[in-house]
């Protein structure tokens, strides 16, 4: 049974080569980004960077850190994710349980997909106009609302896909025991979906914490840690942006250190979510 090089073998070898090449590009890009951020950021990453707020002359290369931006980003993305979750879970459950694949369901999904595609600067500008109308200034609250708006369609659609992949037999099994639709939604569907839902939440959180444009107008920027939701809040992406724009190499290095911190946070969240999802999916029906 000697191997002969037929056309189908050549095609297979070619397709395989293309796939490996694509993988190398993706993995290489990730590696290169991480390398850039780490090699430039790590030397400037000191304890004071993460434990202090900017002191006088920080943006000229003097003392201080970006604790304001770290805390601000966690507040902003955390708040935005929480609000998005409060709305997206009911929307996704409603979509699945009552609308299904009906025409109205399709319209809702279309609307969410369009919202998903809208650039975040548009959300920022929209949020800004709404805030002006209500006489609000740039604040943590404004930023949270803008991020919640950005995250909502991502989270809802991600959850919707997770819920749609639910096996139909599962619903029937629960119905056969005399469950109401609500009991199925809260006790059975949610259990089945939990790993996917956790992933959806953290996907949205990752998008929120990395967004600069939406918080630019709505949350503003400050060197202080916000003490109330009506005060402006700093954020890591903007900290990177502002520091990179300074003409001092000292400050530019700190921009990379800030980027490194942001990357570490996002990395920790995605690894953590994989771990949690893995543990939760123990019970999930395939």
């Amino acid at each position, binding site marked *: 049974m000697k191997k002969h090089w037929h056309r189908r073998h050549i095609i297979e070898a070619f397709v395989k080569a293309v796939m490996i090449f694509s993988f190398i590009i993706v993995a290489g890009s990730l590696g290169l980004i991480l390398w850039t951020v780490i090699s430039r950021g790590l030397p400037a990453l000191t304890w004071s960077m993460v434990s202090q707020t900017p002191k006088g002359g920080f943006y000229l290369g003097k003392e201080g850190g970006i604790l304001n931006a770290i805390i601000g980003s966690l507040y902003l993305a955390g708040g935005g994710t929480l609000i998005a979750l409060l709305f997206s879970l009911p929307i996704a459950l409603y979509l699945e349980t009552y609308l299904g694949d009906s025409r109205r369901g399709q319209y809702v999904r279309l609307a969410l997909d369009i919202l998903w595609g809208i650039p975040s600067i548009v959300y920022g500008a929209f949020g800004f106009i709404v805030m002006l109308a209500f006489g609000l200034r740039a604040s943590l609250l404004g930023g949270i609302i803008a991020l919640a708006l950005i995250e909502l369609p991502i989270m809802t659609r991600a959850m919707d896909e997770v819920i749609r992949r639910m096996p139909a037999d*599962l619903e*029937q099994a629960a119905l056969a025991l005399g469950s109401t639709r609500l009991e199925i939604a809260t006790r059975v569907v949610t259990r089945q979906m939990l790993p996917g839902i956790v992933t959806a939440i953290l996907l949205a959180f990752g998008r929120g914490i990395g967004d600069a444009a939406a918080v630019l107008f709505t949350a503003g920027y400050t060197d202080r840690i916000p003490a109330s939701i009506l005060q402006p809040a700093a954020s890591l992406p903007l900290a990177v942006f502002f520091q990179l724009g300074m003409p001092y190499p000292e400050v530019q290095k700190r921009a990379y250190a800030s980027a490194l911190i942001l990357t570490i946070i996002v990395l920790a969240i995605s690894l953590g979510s994989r771990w949690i999802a893995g543990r939760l999916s123990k019970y999930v029906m395939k």
Partner: protein
Amino acid sequence: MDAHIQIKNLNAYYDDIQALKDVNIELPRKQITVIMGPSGCGKTTLLKTFNRFLELTDKTSITGEVLIDGQNIYERDIDVTEVRKRVGLLAQRPFPLPMSIYENVAYGMHIHRMKNNRNEYRKAVRHYLEVAGLYDEVKTRLTNPATSLSIGQQQRLCLARGLAVEPEIILGDEPTSALDPVSSQHIEGRLLGLKEQYTIVIVTHTLRQAKRLADYVIYMYMGEVVESGPAKEVFNNPKQERTRAYLEGQF
């Protein structure tokens, strides 16, 4: 006959196709009734009218009455969850809930709030796992996911789960068709043991299984009930030519 389920002038439609034609039968209490017939004859459709599962499929409609203990379950003010609690279903393929083995059995009791405290639930879970003949195999791993069980064990878990909500009637929609011979035998044995306490209705397409289980037989063909009666009579001395043909293997 002490009829537990009575069916009067029942017609069922999928869109405009008539799946059940003027069905009038009675099913005896605390016996195993087997519904048999060739594929597509309406066996499963008929079964699905007993726990109001037919309406879960789009574009189905029903006329006529299904009475359980004299009460028409299609009347307007009937609580459908209560019907399904009283009429349990063992599906073709076992489908555990995405929970542990313990929680699968406890789920139904929880939603119907049938027990008062944790201890009562624990006892009941154990009891129904024993009735389903699964307890000894799973007693050391009740918190493991139900998916860790074999298909045959999963079907017995589904039986325990169904029994735990204390139904009066158990429906089985070809409950052994996805199982290996040993597991099938296990399930059949359990069903035979359960008929002391429950009215059991089984759909099957294997004649041999029908002969092993049936006390009472309903033979269907093209959406109509051709013949029904005590198993001995129908199997040994069928009144209808079409039943005889089926029993002799002409389908």
